[in-house]
């Protein structure tokens, strides 16, 4: 836990700033960025998510003033090793969303082969397999299903990948890290 607390602190301090720089960078791009159409779409997504997301065990809501930063929640699927756990994620939508994917990170510590200690997620649809037809809801559902179906080929957390077949130990690690993270927050 101490191991994590430091990077987490670094991460959270560096987390807010670099994106501000990054979001400036796309601005000089040839395309004029229509912020209103992006926020229009995000508002529609929010509406859709509030209407249906709760039933699926995912939810999200803008974090603070900006509609470009959301906090999402994923509940571990029933019958999985994440059952009963609720994970928080941050979603940062770029100004050229949905043509570019949002940055999605676990805010709650998550023991998973494809999630690193900083909460970064290795998921193809958030990178090269992104499609502008995806939205917040499908992202969260994809991450939810990733929890129980990890890609062990390219793990960010090789310890978790190694432990995956040992269900008991794996479950214990999942809970240990989850509640450690909660204790850290409170």
């Amino acid at each position, binding site marked *: 836990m101490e191991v994590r607390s430091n990077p987490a602190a670094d991460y959270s301090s560096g987390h807010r700033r670099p994106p501000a720089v990054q979001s400036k960078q796309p601005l000089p791009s040839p*395309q004029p960025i229509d912020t209103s159409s992006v926020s229009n*779409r995000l508002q*529609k997504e929010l509406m859709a998510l509030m209407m249906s997301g709760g039933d699926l065990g995912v939810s999200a809501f803008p974090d603070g003033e900006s509609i470009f930063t959301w906090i999402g929640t994923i509940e571990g699927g029933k019958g999985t090793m994440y059952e009963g756990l609720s994970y928080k994620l941050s979603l940062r939508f770029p100004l050229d969303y949905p*043509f570019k994917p949002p940055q999605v990170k676990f805010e709650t510590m998550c023991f998973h082969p494809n999630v690193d200690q900083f909460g970064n997620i290795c998921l193809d649809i958030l990178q090269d*397999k992104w*499609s*502008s*037809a995806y939205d917040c809801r499908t992202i969260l559902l994809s991450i939810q299903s990733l929890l129980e179906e990890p890609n062990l080929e390219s793990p960010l957390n090789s310890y978790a990948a190694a432990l995956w077949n040992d269900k008991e130990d794996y479950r214990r690690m999942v809970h240990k890290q989850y509640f450690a993270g909660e204790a850290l927050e409170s």
Partner: protein
Amino acid sequence: MVSDSIAAVPIPSAANTKNPGKKKRTNRSAKLKQYKIDARREQWLSQGAVRSKGCKDGVDDEGHAPPSPAEKHIKRSLEPLATRRRGEEDDGLIHHDSDSESPSNCPNSCNDSGTNFTGSSSGGSSSSSSSSSGGCCSGNITEEEEDDDEEEDEGDDGCLDDWEEMADALAADDKHQQSPCSDSPPAVQTVLPGEMAHGSNFGSPNSKPESGSRLVPWASGNNRAWRADDAFRPQSLPNLSKQHSLPNPDRRCGGGVPWVRTSMPSSCPICCEDLDLTDTSFLPCLCGFRLCLFCHKRILEQDGRCPGCRKPYECEPIETEASVLGGSLTLRLARSCSMIERNQYRCGLIQSQSMNNLSFLLLGVLMIGS
């Protein structure tokens, strides 16, 4: 045969169906009517040869019974029309009387198709209104053209000074008459129950392509669209029946009426803006994923992949298939792709034509639906 029917329908018999109130027409109007009847009979006789075939082929089997032995049939088929007219004529227009009751109109009522395309001379000015009244509730373009025709024709008649005046009144009545007739084209409605709103336009636009050469537009209410095998179907009309063999032409083109499409997203899934008519007829990818042109352009500038299936836009998906799948499937995909494009092009064509002339579009609806 046709000339028989003309000769056999005397004016008095026409008067039978006339509203009693009409009988106090002035001599002048009767005279005028007589002029017109004579002129029309001449035209009719000159074309009897051509038209009689149409009456035999296309009309008798449809129960409209043009020839003389069936004069009662004629009256019967005109009955709803006449009754309806009576109410409308209360505002004092003679011309509709002569439309539905003059001898030359009786054969006309049998089928819209014959005259409009066989006829080559002008005349029958007042009866043009009857053709438009038959099935049109919204064909404004058509009406105006017809009105123009009427006035020209009437000028040709050159009989009376107040002729123009009456033509104006007729035109006014004409427009007024459009609305109550929306239920009149039964053929269209039975063929395409789902598109009644559009189907009711059929009556008049059908006669439009030849509006310049229209001789005696027929008293209608029995308006029918062209059938594919109709002997008098003009060659110029697009033959949309081919599209039956194309993959899902109805779904992709909305059966020629893009705005009736049902399975169309109302807004672009990417930017959430409403799709306009151009966007809705835009199908960039075989997978069926639709988006607005702006988003499509923007994606092309970036990775150029369809958001719905992630395959690159344009021809590349087929090449990709070629490496994975057999040659025959590739060929098939290529063909269906080109067909879709052609289809879309045709839809666009129909749409643009419909700006000037509704008949192509409406005909397309009927042909696809039948």
